[in-house]
């Protein structure tokens, strides 16, 4: 039975919540597939565990609240939250990291606020940051890319052991991420050229994603393609990704020009860590980002600024999660102060003066 439509419009655009979620997932699929490919079966197992637990926790919460379970589960939001959480986890993390992450994302990140559309913080980022400060060891164990079916890659039985019974990754397969590596080198007084001398860094490798890092963050290229597709489909607007990437790009340019030995350049920043994933898939989260174009530009620039600051001077090698959460907390304030100009009024809300030409 359809809802009674008592007033106009009697026409609807055929965009539906479910369809939007589906398209985001489609845009996310290439980067995910690539992550699974280079990090092997354990990555796929972790992805499955996280998504299934996200759905489970969502269903549980809905049942406890006495709300319709089926309809809400089918809207795709819990699936997407679980998926995005998995994308930010170390690919060989044990199963319980995925379960705890999904619980934080769904229960603490979303349902305690009242469900879809009500939460203040991005669920996936909340989960990632909570896990990082609670389980630093598990959350910073990175594996080198070992593509599926290559000689070094673990087979399915070994992968099951890695994910479900905490078997350690084989020697020589783990190491720091690139950003983590140069941070350590800097702290030992080495310069950038020295830190990167070991052949660690290659722009193309970083851009394509052939580096260690979280499950879904390594391939800047595939994430960028997915993001551009979402832009074209008008799922996201350009303000947040452009201002976020632009801010990091600008700051990196300024600092690398000032001292190239201490500050890596813009291309390094754009292709490393979770920046790209964050700019297109996380910071653009409708619920937790401002709703006016200028508000979104402020939000994106703020995220970029914080990420750059944490990467450059902070105690953590990477700051995407913190940046997004901090800016999430500012969203209501931004929304309060930054609003579109109402037709026929100036920015303060007073009616336009006839004598004054409009701005």
């Amino acid at each position, binding site marked *: 039975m359809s809802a009674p439509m008592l007033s106009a*419009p009697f026409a*609807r655009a055929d965009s*539906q919540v479910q369809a939007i979620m589906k398209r985001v997932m489609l845009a996310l699929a290439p980067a995910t597939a690539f992550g699974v490919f280079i990090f092997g079966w354990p990555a796929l197992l972790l992805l499955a565990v996280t998504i299934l637990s996200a759905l489970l926790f969502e269903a549980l919460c809905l049942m406890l609240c006495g709300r319709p379970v089926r309809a809400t589960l089918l809207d795709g939001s819990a699936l997407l939250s679980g998926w995005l959480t998995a994308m930010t986890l170390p690919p060989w993390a044990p199963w319980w990291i995925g379960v705890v992450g999904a619980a934080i994302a769904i229960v603490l990140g979303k349902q305690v606020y009242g469900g879809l559309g009500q939460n203040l913080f991005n669920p996936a980022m909340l989960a990632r940051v909570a896990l990082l400060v609670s389980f630093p060891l598990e959350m910073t164990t990175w594996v080198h890319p070992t593509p599926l079916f290559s000689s070094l890659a673990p087979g399915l039985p070994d992968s099951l052991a890695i994910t479900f019974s905490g078997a350690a990754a084989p020697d020589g397969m783990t190491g720091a991420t690139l950003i983590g590596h140069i941070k350590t080198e800097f702290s030992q007084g080495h310069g950038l050229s020295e830190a990167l001398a070991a052949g660690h860094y290659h722009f193309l490798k970083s851009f394509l994603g052939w580096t260690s890092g979280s499950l879904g963050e390594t391939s800047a290229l595939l994430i960028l393609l997915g993001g551009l597709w979402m832009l074209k489909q008008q799922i996201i*607007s350009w303000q947040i990704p452009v201002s976020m990437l632009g801010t990091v790009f600008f700051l990196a340019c300024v600092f690398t020009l000032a001292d190239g030995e201490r500050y890596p350049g813009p291309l390094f920043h754009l292709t490393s860590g979770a920046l790209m994933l964050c700019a297109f898939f996380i910071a653009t989260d409708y619920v937790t980002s401002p709703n006016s174009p200028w508000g979104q530009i402020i939000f994106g620039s703020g995220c970029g600024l914080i990420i750059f600051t944490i990467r450059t001077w902070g105690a953590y090698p990477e700051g995407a999660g913190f940046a997004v959460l901090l800016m999430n907390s500012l969203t209501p304030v931004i929304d309060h102060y930054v609003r579109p100009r109402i037709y026929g009024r100036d920015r303060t809300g007073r009616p*336009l003066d006839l004598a004054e030409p409009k701005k």
Partner: protein
Amino acid sequence: MLPFDIASLWSRKKIRGGVHPEPRKGATADQTIDTAFPLPKMLYLPLQQHVGQPAEPVVKVGERVLKGQLLAGSQGKISAPIHAPTSGIILDIMDYPAAHPSALPTPTLLLEPDGEDQWIEGIGEIDPFSLSPAEIADRVGAAGVVGMGGAAFPSAVKLNLGRKTRIQTLLINGGECEPYLTCDDRLMRERAADIVDGIRIMLRALECRHAIVGIEDNKPEAYDTMREAAKGFGQIEITLVPSLYPMGWDKQLIGYLTDKEVPAGGRSADVGVLMHNVGTAYAIQQAIRFNKPLVSRVITVSGEAVAAPRNVEAPIGTPLADLLAYCGHQSGATARYVMGGPMMGDLLPHANVPLVKGATGILALTEGEVAASDAKACIRCSRCVSACPAGLLPLEMMTRIRAGQLEGAVNYGLKDCISCGSCSYVCPSQIPLVHYFKYASGELVARQQAQHKSEQTKKLAEEKQARIDRYKQEQAAAAAARKAAREQQQKKKTEEAA
């Protein structure tokens, strides 16, 4: 396609918001206006077909009237008279369902056509340019012309207003941005010369030298025909405007064509612009050049429950159900009757209401066309924000109205909402945003009235108390005076006695 319009970055002509609803104009756009609609058995003429005061009947029940004869005169400053759409007998003056979402009964003249369709005397061509501007406005008023684009505002009032303020530009709205509707498109394609003539008459009435006709770029034929018709009249400019809903919103079109912005609470005349619809230009031309009052109009009859959709020229007062039946309407398939376009039109509970002057379309929509579904939670996607042509934040207004904070919604611009429906149209959660805003606006008016009433009551009570007090004081003073007089007399008497 780029995610945003790069050209708009440096273009002076900025368009805010707007949506692209599926046009659905194909069913009726390529057929000529059907003028063969037979006279209905009965015509229902509501006394209120315009914004303002209802008209006052000047005929008696049982009287025979001629086509074009005045049936009800205007009363008050903002009103429009009503004329007989054909010759016949006035059977009754009664209450009949109004062409309004409520369809509540309203005073209506019932006219039974005699089939002769005989005009009153005095219909014939005159030279409009021999008339003074004031005379033109007066004749437009006497002919009962109102805004034909749906607004139904008495046109003469607007023309008179234009004579009081200096109008630099007369805008003619040929946008017709509502889906389904093609009556203006057809009018421009078939009667362009008359429309141009009407525009020239309006220019004279306004003592204005420049007119711009804005036509949406999805009507190339109308554009070409109008251009051809306007050739040789340098003061009339025909311009294409982008197909974007609500391009027919006067302020959107004014902004696009003249780069002016009307201040909040102001009128377009404040920035030297006046806007009329192409249908109004046509009606004005008929009224002035041929002395014919407004007794018929072209209406789009469409929707998937109509087998042969088309534009019909029909007498005012025709039951919409007759028009639908004429176009092969299947009532079983109809989920919604809409008068006007689907974006801003009114939902009618049934089609047994008459054709009124401002009705641009009657749509019989099927369940599939309306595509109604249950509202879901708002995901704050801000599509409504990008769609709003007035720069409002519909989602913020909606959450505040839901929480009962009407003042909060006003703070976000509730009073600047034009109910164009763009926000509801794009909402992926199918939230009936406009419905919330209409409710809240109505509620605010009701509260204001209630407050006004209680203040009025308080004032009356205070005045009554003051009157009582004054009366008591007067009584006391009089008593005191009498007492004093008595004492005086007593004193006198005792003095005399002594």
